[in-house]
């Protein structure tokens, strides 16, 4: 397994948000993580990235134990984050983002390769990220993560507030990641995007993963979806 999580408990200050998460993700697999607001999806992603402290449990990437390590150590072990709200650096140009990101791990993804995949960023290369549209910022956040040549990519609501055309581009990038053998964990409210790219669907509730099935099976079972998510 590329990513393996066992009994993960974490949270802010003293209140645990995650109550013992178990999760396995293979190379080239894409898992859509669904759940109601407050179920702990973002906390799980931020904990895996090392930005929320681990209380107990284990996180391994390619067999290397990462629970409790600093975020930069986790990143060097091959975990990349596309956070909720994009969090691009507004005072840096697009080119500066790509330059900073590409100095970490060398591999398949290069600045030129990313710009071929997301040509919009090439046009905007000299612009400050703060002046980009929401969709362009999201593409930049994805590009920044991929340039670290990760083994695991964590995407937290990448479609949030974006036009359908842009969501399709992001779906195309996720599909490319998968063909490169990257393990993708996708937190998503947009079920169309989630079902389009994910092999499997997992549902979180109250800080635990309560359901996990192949995407096709999840779609055939609207009653369970309704019960777990409150949507059809």
């Amino acid at each position, binding site marked *: 397994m590329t990513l393996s999580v066992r009994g993960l408990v974490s949270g802010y200050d003293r209140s645990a948000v995650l109550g013992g998460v178990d999760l396995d993700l293979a190379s080239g697999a894409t898992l859509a993580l669904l759940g109601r607001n407050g179920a702990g999806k973002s906390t799980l992603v931020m904990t895996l990235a090392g930005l929320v402290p681990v209380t107990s449990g284990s996180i391994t990437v390619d067999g290397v134990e990462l629970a409790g390590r600093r975020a*930069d150590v986790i990143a060097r072990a091959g975990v990349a984050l596309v956070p909720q709200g994009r*969090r691009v*650096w507004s005072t840096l140009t697009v080119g*500066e983002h790509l*330059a*900073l990101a590409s100095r970490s791990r060398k591999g398949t993804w290069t600045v030129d390769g990313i710009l071929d995949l997301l040509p919009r960023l090439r046009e905007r290369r000299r612009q400050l990220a703060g002046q980009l549209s929401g969709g362009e910022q999201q593409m930049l956040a994805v590009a*920044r993560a991929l340039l670290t040549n990760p083994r695991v990519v964590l995407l937290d609501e990448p479609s949030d507030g974006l036009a359908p055309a842009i969501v399709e581009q992001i779906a195309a990038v996720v599909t490319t990641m998968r063909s490169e053998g990257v393990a993708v964990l996708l937190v998503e409210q947009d079920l169309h995007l989630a079902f389009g790219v994910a092999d499997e669907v997992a549902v979180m509730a109250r800080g635990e993963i309560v359901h996990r099935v192949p995407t096709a099976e999840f779609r055939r079972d609207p009653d369970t979806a309704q019960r777990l998510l409150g949507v059809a």
Partner: protein
Amino acid sequence: MLVSVLNGFAIGFLLFILAVGLSLVFGMMDVLNLAHGALFLGGAYLGAVLGGSWGGFLGALGLAALGGLAGGVLLSLMTEPLRRRSHLDQALLTLGVALIAAELLIITFGDDPLSAAAPPGLDGSVTVLGAVYPTYRLLIIVIGAVLALAVYLVVDRTRVGALVRATVDDREMVSTLGIDNRLVKGAVFAVGSVLATVAGVLGGPIYGARPGLDATVLILALVVVVIGGLGSVRGALVGALVIGQIDTVGRVLLPDFASFVLFGALALVLVVRPQGLFGTRAVAR
């Protein structure tokens, strides 16, 4: 009047050199380094004791740079265990360091004010547009402008500068690229401290070296940081030049109200634009 304006520029550029490190470290890591003024005073004492000849002046600059480097690295390491604590805890630590440093400087150099001589050849004066003006202060304006430009270009145009700006903007996202925030902080702390001690040597022939000068320049630098905006190099430059003019021209025009004008400008900025002229976020409480 011209003399006041020139003085304002000399003091403004000195203040920029002093304040830019303070601003970047605070903007980047939320560490308010109250020992920054002590670094300046250390440099001023070195200049006062060694200055008077070119060899002594340059030697003082070199020693001050080394001392600043060591001081910056030490302060960066000392504040690291308090990383997750509040501003107040960190400020208390650096205040303690500042008090100890001030006491050590008094023990070493005595509590009488020392004057620092400008290097030979620069201790005279020249005529600028009909006004007589000290040569050394003109040189400070030139050196200050060159240093300010250099710092600005490094932060604004280079890869290293992009890393500094990214860390000021959102350091967590920098760490998700595999870059250790502590190294960036340590490097900026060290460079900022070198600039502070060097500013002390350069400012010696203008301010002299005396107990209490550390607090005076620290407050001026803090005013610059607040007016310019946390973590903004452009803000620190504009803030420093504005404060330099307010401090000198204000003294000439309104001699009884000079400090009111200075802190009035501060209050005005805080009311109208709490994030500072070039800052992107308000001063955190």
